[in-house]
């Protein structure tokens, strides 16, 4: 195999800091290489610099595509290479597709530009491409706008667009991160299939090479032939996939591989009492059938006849895809959303029975930690204000000094030092922000915390630390958790029991390990299969 892409001594600088440092990597024709690293490691930047799509960044070193130097190529010739020789798939297909054009139009654009196809031949090629990606009803979908498609369908359209001119190199930047687990597996399988087909059709020398950029290790294991590991802009290890997973050499690689969360659950001893109990919960949303004022309204069920209970010191995982109703259920459990039918009891009393001062106390005992550590902290308040707000509200009897001491001690508890008190959220990393969010909930001494995707926005090594912190806090304070996630690895690590939700219903529930090992429902089997 000859090298298709050769990167030599690539260094990227911005404002004097080195973002990528002396990176040397080659990709052979028809090869699948994964570039792995955490956020901020420079992996996306490296990919973008191949296509010269970075702006405001100083590039030095050499990038050769089939022997042609790309860094010094005139912009006009570079445009020919983009889309025809090298194509790219982005993480968020909704943002990467133009919302004002049909997907057919957008795929046709590349073809018309690079291959000069017109009219019927063009239309047929577009449909053939969409068929190739496994999109159902390509003849109709070709006229759909991006917002009319689901996430998976959009990503398929993106793939069709990238494949349009049979590129020699496909750069896939986190192609599945924004998708649901079960769809991820299918997209990856399809990508692999398409790549294999190009090799069969054109031979290995002309086959498509794929540079996969990701932080998702299971995906790497299934897809890549070779793996390159990036740490803070430095390439620390390049090895074949089997070798890397079997015997990682660099300590950072080892750390990455070990950061898959391990089960850290203390068994219940049977003396725990039920803290929260939900019965027959139904939530409906009224939707208008059209924009007209007196249009008929139809109600869709977000949650249908769901019941569950949580005991003290217990973690109940709720697993499901986006739109399965799990976050709606969490809002109902917290009493922030009134269910259409059914009842939630907390501490033996229905939530609706809490009134006035009692209701305020209830708010302190039921807390929530959100998914996005960037959106859940108000950017214009200091950490002391954010953490102290609940305390000021629920414990007005404390003096200012006592409050201050509490804030400092709860921050210490979650692993932060007191020097962050007067700083603002933007100065902290994702993991630190999530710790702040946990401290904000913890300070009002809750009995139950709803964790809504608490780690899905974090890097895996950070994810493990946060999960460990949560487990430790549970042991120390006897907290109950309702853990909402799409990530089975997190559930396996944290939850005593798990409920699997699909389309607003619980399709399966029970002891976590039982469900994982012997899934009975079809959907659960798919989920478990996709996460291995």
């Amino acid at each position, binding site marked *: 195999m000859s090298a298709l892409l050769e990167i030599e001594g690539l260094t990227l600088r911005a404002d004097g800091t080195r973002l990528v440092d002396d990176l040397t990597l080659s990709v052979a024709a028809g090869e699948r290489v994964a570039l792995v690293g955490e956020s901020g490691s420079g992996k996306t930047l490296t990919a973008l610099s191949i296509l010269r799509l970075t*702006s405001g960044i100083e590039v030095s070193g050499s990038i050769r595509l089939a022997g042609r130097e790309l860094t010094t190529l005139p912009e006009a010739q570079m445009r020919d290479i983009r889309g025809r020789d090298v194509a790219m798939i982005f993480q968020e297909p909704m943002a990467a597709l133009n919302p004002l054009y049909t997907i057919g139009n957008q795929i046709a654009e590349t073809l018309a530009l690079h291959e000069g196809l017109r009219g019927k031949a063009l239309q047929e090629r577009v449909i053939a491409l969409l068929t190739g990606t496994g999109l159902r009803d390509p003849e109709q979908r070709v006229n759909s706008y991006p917002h009319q498609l689901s996430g998976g369908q959009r990503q398929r359209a993106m793939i069709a667009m990238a494949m349009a001119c049979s590129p020699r190199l496909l750069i896939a930047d986190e192609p599945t991160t924004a998708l649901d687990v079960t769809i991820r597996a299918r997209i990856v399988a399809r990508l692999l299939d398409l790549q294999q087909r190009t090799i069969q059709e054109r031979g290995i020398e002309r086959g498509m090479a794929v540079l996969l950029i990701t932080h998702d290790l299971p995906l790497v294991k299934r897809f890549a032939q070779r793996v390159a590991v990036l740490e803070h802009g430095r390439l620390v290890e390049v090895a074949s996939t089997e070798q890397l997973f079997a015997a990682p050499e660099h300590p950072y690689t080892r750390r990455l591989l070990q950061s898959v969360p391990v089960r850290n659950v203390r068994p219940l001893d049977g003396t725990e009492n039920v803290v929260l109990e939900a019965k027959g919960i139904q939530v409906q949303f009224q939707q208008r059938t059209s924009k007209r004022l007196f249009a008929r309204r139809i109600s869709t069920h977000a949650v249908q006849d769901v019941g569950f209970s949580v005991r003290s010191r217990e973690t109940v995982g709720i697993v499901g895809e986006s739109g399965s109703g799990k976050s709606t259920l969490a809002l109902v459990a917290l009493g922030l959303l009134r269910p259409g039918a059914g009842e939630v009891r907390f501490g033996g009393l229905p939530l609706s029975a809490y009134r006035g001062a009692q209701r305020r106390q209830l*708010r302190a005992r039921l807390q929530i930690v959100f998914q996005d550590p960037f959106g859940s902290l*108000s950017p214009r*308040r200091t950490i002391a204000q954010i953490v102290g*707000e609940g305390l000021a509200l629920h414990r007005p009897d404390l003096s200012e000094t006592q409050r201050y001491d509490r804030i400092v001690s709860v921050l210490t508890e979650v692993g932060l030092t007191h020097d962050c008190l007067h700083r603002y959220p933007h100065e902290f990393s994702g993991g630190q922000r999530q710790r702040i969010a946990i401290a*904000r909930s913890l300070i009002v001494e809750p009995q139950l915390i709803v964790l809504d995707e608490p780690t899905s926005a974090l890097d895996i090594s950070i994810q493990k630390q946060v999960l460990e912190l949560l487990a430790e806090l549970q042991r120390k304070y006897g907290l109950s958790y309702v853990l909402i996630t799409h990530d089975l690895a997190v559930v396996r690590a944290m939850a005593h029991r798990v409920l699997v939700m699909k389309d607003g219903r619980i399709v399966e529930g029970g002891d976590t390990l039982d469900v994982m090992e012997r899934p009975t429902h079809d959907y659960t089997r798919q989920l478990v299969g996709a996460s291995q």
Partner: protein
Amino acid sequence: MRAPESRATQSPGLRVWTRFKANRQAWWSLVILASLFALSLGAELIANDKPLVARYDGRWFLPLWNEYPETAFGGELNTEADYHEPFVRRALEKPGNFALYSPNGWGYAAMNYYPTTPHPAPPSLTNLLGTDIIGRDIAARLLYAFRISMLFGLGLTAIGVILGVAFGAIQGFFGGSVDLITQRLIEVWGSLPELYLLIIFASLLEPSIWLIFVLLSMFSWIGLSDYVRAEFLRNRHLEYVSAARAMGLSNWQIMWRHVLPNSLTPVITFIPFRISAAIMALTSLDFLGLGVPAPTPSLGELLAQGKTYLYAWWISIPTFVVLISTLLLLTFIGDGLRNAMDTRSSARLSKVVP
């Protein structure tokens, strides 16, 4: 155990301020405009008919604060002394007596009864920028007109911001039917013809600057409330608002502490532009003769005179210069504020948009 006080970092507001100060054009515009405005607030000490301090027959007089009849200076009339009167002047210049006048010896209303050339008189040593059609000092009128324009602009903007933020916040935060109904009401209110109302009220009531102020402030908030509403609609769905709600905070606490501070960017960015729009509104009304009654000094009235007496360049050109520099300075400040508030333009690492 009390931990040692930690080093506080810059608040987001302070960062905007630092960025604003780094923009030299905007920063100097603010400094210049603020000093001119501060100076104009002390206009009585700069341009006044009366002496600031006077000594007559061994007694001290403070004509700026107290009214003295002409008899106090040896005159005949029992009315307030006219310090431009040659008789009073001579009395104060006698040996032993003394009077300290302001740098520009004319107020905005007094007429020069002893002109060497007919009014409007060109610049001379008596009237530095000449006089207007009835002999009032242009320099003094410009100074007072600038002060009134600025005060009017600031006042109208303040009322507009308060009302606009209040209405926008309520619409955006509560949404739904509250939003729907308020929006319709605002649309009806906004479609009332401002200028007709002004003309009608000017004929019904005694025209005054307060009438204009009240009428304009009833409409000046509408545009702003739309921006605030949009910001609130966006921010109320963010997770920190849900987190505050889960904490048990009331709606008003959430609005005040969490949503409002994060929704003020468009409000603050627009403030300088709103001030200049208010100044322009007052000037245009005065120019059309619908504005403040005489002898209130106003830029619009001076412009109108300049238009009528085109040859009297000393009326039109200085007025034009004052008006244009005020608006220009405000625009520079606004531009600087907009850039300082816009975090995207100062982002360190521009990620690519293919």
